[in-house]
């Protein structure tokens, strides 16, 4: 089909391809390699991996990550869906863009700052404790920050926004005639939602849930700021290997394990979506 030689095409894609190979594939290979070859030069060893399965403090990090991420995903979807529905169906058309922009606005602070802001709300002397103590509801401040709960709140705050956007787009894409037909045949708004809207938006929710899972499980910032070191999640464990001990081998092995978990989730999700399509 091309009348000019493919050479121009190759020339055009080489820079991007080269960059990907050198700065993405090779580093990945290096990381893989170093996970099997500790830096003390003792040769091939699976120690970094067996260590993970052997020490509770290590594999609990993965369990914690999965639990927290699962919790965050479920809560965020439950909160975001009705919100997205309100923005798509209840808010008058001409205000929808503004309503969406407002919902996204607070996330234009940097991600680090946004997580820090929750500390301002949840810490011992922060807004919540100070207010509750002042009004006599509490006699002394309670531990809200540096807990799993704080991490979950911090994550949910972000992912409710993200899921609202994706579910909104999904809802908008749905032909209005489906709902009209359902109404015409006697379905009230609730039954129209259960029988028609929800099933048709389910694939979109699935994609959003997967996105949430992947982004949350790999996030270092939120758990570190809000969860502290009481309960470690995978990203924190990984960073600890580098920071404290300079142990690239362990860090690499843990990163690979994390990546495998995400890949597994991806395969499950893709399989589910394929089943949905038939």
């Amino acid at each position, binding site marked *: 089909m091309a009348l000019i030689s493919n050479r121009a095409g190759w020339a055009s894609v080489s820079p991007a391809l080269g960059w990907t190979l050198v700065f993405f594939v090779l580093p990945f290979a290096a990381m893989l390699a170093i996970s099997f070859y500790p830096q003390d030069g003792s040769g091939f060893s699976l120690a970094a991996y067996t260590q993970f399965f052997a020490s509770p403090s290590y594999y609990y990090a993965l369990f914690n990550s999965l639990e927290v991420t699962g919790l965050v995903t479920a809560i965020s979807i439950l909160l975001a869906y009705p919100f997205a529905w309100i923005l798509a169906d209840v808010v008058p058309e001409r205000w929808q863009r503004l309503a969406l922009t407002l919902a996204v606005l607070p996330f234009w602070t940097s991600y680090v700052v946004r997580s820090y802001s929750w500390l301002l709300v949840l810490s011992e002397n922060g807004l919540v404790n100070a207010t509750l103590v002042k009004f006599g509801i509490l006699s002394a401040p309670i531990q809200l920050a540096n807990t799993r709960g704080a991490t979950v709140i911090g994550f949910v705050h972000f992912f409710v926004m993200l899921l609202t956007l994706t579910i909104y787009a999904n809802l908008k894409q749905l032909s209005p*005639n489906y709902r009209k037909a*359902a109404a*015409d*045949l*006697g379905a009230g708004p609730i039954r129209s939602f259960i029988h028609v809207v929800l099933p048709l938006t389910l694939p979109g929710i699935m994609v959003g849930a997967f996105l949430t899972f992947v982004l949350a499980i790999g996030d270092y910032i939120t758990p570190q700021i809000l969860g502290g070191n009481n309960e470690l999640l995978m990203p924190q464990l990984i960073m600890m290997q580098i920071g404290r001990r300079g142990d690239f081998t362990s860090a690499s092995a843990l990163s690979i394990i994390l990546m495998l978990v995400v890949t597994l989730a991806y395969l499950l999700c893709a399989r589910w979506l394929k089943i949905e399509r038939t």
Partner: protein
Amino acid sequence: MKDLVTIENLSRDFANTKALNDVSLAIKPGSYTVLLGPSGSGKTTLLSILGGFLQPSSGRVLINGADCTNVPPAKRPTATVFQDYALFPHMTVENNVGFGLRMRGVDSATRTARAEEMLTLVGLAQSAGKKPHQLSGGQRQRVALARALIVEPAVLLLDEPLGALDLKLRRQMQDELKAIQKRVGTAFIHVTHDQEEAMALADHVVVMNNGEIEDEGTPEKVYAQPASRFSATFMGESTIINNHAIRPEHITIVKSKGRLGSATVADIVYQGSYKRVLAKSDATQFIIRMPAETTLTVGETVQLDCASNHMIKLLR
């Protein structure tokens, strides 16, 4: 016979135009009414108001004597077949068809039986377990029809149901629609811009333009006695002279001087069973239907004639 549907002085404003302007109409039970008009004529707006998807700015809609103007679609005795069919993609054909009964609390066994009945009526009994995306356009149209008829509405509303089909399929579906309507006995109100479709299906044609009703009656009456210039040129073709309309098949070419005078042949279009001839005089453009074997040449001067009773006086 009492009217099934009465539309009283319906108006619908839209931005700075009137989508419907003081429209009044009566629909008889068991009739096949076609709302015919170009885009923007208000025919779809009228249908949407009848279905309850749109509120009129003023006026009333009465169905079986009851004022339904503010009644939501679910509670009206109407059912709509949408232009894109709007079949629920995640449900089987059978579940699609049974949906209306499910909303009415009918039990599963009865639903299945009734759905099978309706699918047999539209000729799709074997497709009950399929999903919409596995069906052709014509098949989907029939499922949409079955889904709407199963709830036994007083009136069935169809929004350009055959628009997405090719010519041959359209003709076939027209025959089927007519047969089903006669069989079921429900009043159909069918919106289209295709005047041939209107003539083939309707026993009551309503010609609309600019939010108003231009003409109304049986297809034979509207064709033979068009009330307005618009109606004369939209439903079939006409030559307009001095506020009179003459149908192409009523103009003849004669040897001696004709009532209509002389004209120059401008274009000859072969249409298989006839030739469509355009001829021009100083004042008028004539549209003439001639037998297929006629030999004429472009530029030739001819004398045109017609019987006096074929010159129809237009009211508007």
